[in-house]
């Protein structure tokens, strides 16, 4: 009898457990749930905006971070669809998500590549915008970069090296700089590099200015001809073409100004709530929060594609 009672109790517990878990998100004040996939380099700024949005509206917010190409794969391959997806390269939208997984996206923020380091980095005392490419070639210096097959920051770093070779007129420079990072020092995304730099494993990383500022790293601004930060130089950047060999094929990326993209996927489970968060993020308050985390937000987000929610069109200004 006791055995039966135990089984009954267990069965009741098992039956109740899922609803007990699911209840709070669905029924809290406001009832909105917003799931956001964020490129690693946007994780902290968007977390700040999400927290304010949650306080303001009572919405339940959830965030998943990763490399931009990895996040796009979660949507297209695993069919795990968030309500908002924010990526470090707007180009990932047309390449992987539009038109099947999303019908539109917004270009919303800019960034530039910098050379980040810390006080204890080898050569930290002398490195400058004039000699950085020579310091990186010193044998005692450990240089990290991201995996170009996973993260935009990875192929952008290679584009920076190509542009540096042209700018400084040093033949073979790009290949030499690329070879300075052995596979052992390559990491999947922009944020993991920062962690290794902080842990003292790396001396220098080529990474986004926003991450360097947000993590209080020392960094060197590279010339505008190199740093992929100036939209007016799009034609110049495009002269750096980067080939990324993969197991089965080779990807080619043309250098381009760094522009972040954000959107609500077609099959977002809470699409309306996602659009409301986006309206908040692209509005004055959201822009200020992103700006406080060193993200260079466009004054006017640019919408690309069809059927942009009307709430967003209204919130543009």
């Amino acid at each position, binding site marked *: 009898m006791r055995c*039966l009672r135990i089984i009954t109790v267990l069965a009741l517990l098992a039956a109740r457990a899922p609803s007990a878990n699911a209840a709070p998100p669905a029924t809290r004040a406001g009832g909105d749930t917003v799931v956001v996939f964020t490129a690693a380099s946007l994780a902290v700024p968007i977390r700040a905006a999400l927290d304010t949005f949650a306080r303001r509206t009572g919405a339940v917010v959830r965030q998943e971070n990763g490399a931009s190409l990895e996040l796009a794969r979660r949507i297209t391959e695993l069919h795990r669809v968030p309500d908002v997806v924010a990526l470090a390269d707007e180009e990932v939208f047309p390449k992987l998500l539009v038109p099947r997984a999303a019908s539109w996206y917004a270009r919303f923020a800019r960034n530039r590549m910098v050379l980040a380091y810390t006080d204890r980095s080898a050569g930290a005392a002398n490195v400058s915008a004039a000699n950085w490419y020579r310091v990186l070639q010193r044998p005692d210096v450990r240089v990290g970069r991201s*995996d170009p097959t996973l993260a935009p920051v990875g192929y952008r770093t290679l584009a920076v090296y190509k542009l540096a070779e042209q700018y400084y007129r040093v033949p073979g420079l790009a290949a030499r700089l690329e070879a300075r990072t052995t*596979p052992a020092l390559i990491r999947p995304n922009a944020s993991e590099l920062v962690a290794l730099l902080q842990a*003292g494993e790396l001396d220098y990383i080529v990474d986004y200015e926003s991450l360097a500022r947000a993590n209080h790293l020392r960094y060197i601004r590279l010339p505008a001809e190199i740093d992929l930060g100036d939209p007016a130089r799009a034609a110049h950047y495009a002269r750096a073409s980067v080939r990324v060999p993969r197991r089965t094929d080779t990807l080619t990326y043309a250098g381009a100004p760094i522009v972040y993209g954000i959107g609500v996927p077609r099959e977002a489970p809470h699409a309306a709530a996602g659009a409301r968060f986006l309206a908040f993020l692209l509005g004055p308050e959201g822009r200020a929060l992103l700006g406080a985390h060193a993200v260079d937000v466009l004054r006017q987000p640019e919408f690309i594609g069809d059927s942009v929610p009307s709430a967003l069109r209204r919130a543009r200004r």
Partner: protein
Amino acid sequence: MTTSAPPVRATHRLATTGVVAGSLLLMLLLALPIVTVVLRSGVTGLQQLGADAELRASLWLTAQTATLATLLTVLLGTPLAYLLARERLPAASVVSALLDLPLLIPHPVAGMALLLAFGRASPGGAALAAFGLAVVGSRTGIVLAMLFVAAPLYVSAAREAIARVDERYESVARTLGDSPARAAWRVTRPLAGRGLLAAAVVMWARAVSEFGAIVILTYNPKVASVLSYDRFTGEGLDAALPVAAVLVILALVPLLALRTLRARALPGELTR
């Protein structure tokens, strides 16, 4: 109520049904995902072994590092397991609890902890560097991460295996003139041998499957778990599953070996 026969039988039948249904449910939960992966991509994975040098290198690296981590643990962990089993350690319960701690720590945190303790900038890392070893982006890092997450499994299973061997056999050897260490080596080690081997196989299997701690320390060169995740994120599900399927198929070898050893070990084992 319990004195009348029919309700008892009905209760028993119900309990038996419950036990069987529960067992089947658990088996289904455990087996279904693995069978799905193997059925879907097993053949592709095995075919790919021939053409995919990166996959072969990764499986080889995984086997090597897991074996090295296991050997190191057997070497260092068996004496410790013996002391714990024979309660020869002061504060044995504290030591046991400390040994369980790595099992509690989320694996990425274990990776970060190892990075802080043995990274280039730490005293531990400086000591390793003196021997030409670095934990980031190296085999050393892989072995260290595997050891950290899997060694506690070996020590606790080895402790159980040794505790099952009656201490009186050692006492007999002692009365015949063996030193304590010699008695443990000549009497207890062979009697606990199969249990120790089984413990080592469990540790090896756990080391092979480790991902979270390894990927923090060593993303390249890639062990099989990192490679399958990397293929998934870079190329998608269809590229990742063959790697996982091959790993599952190859992992069957030590698991079958373990089961065979256990089956043979039980009947004739000398226990108290």
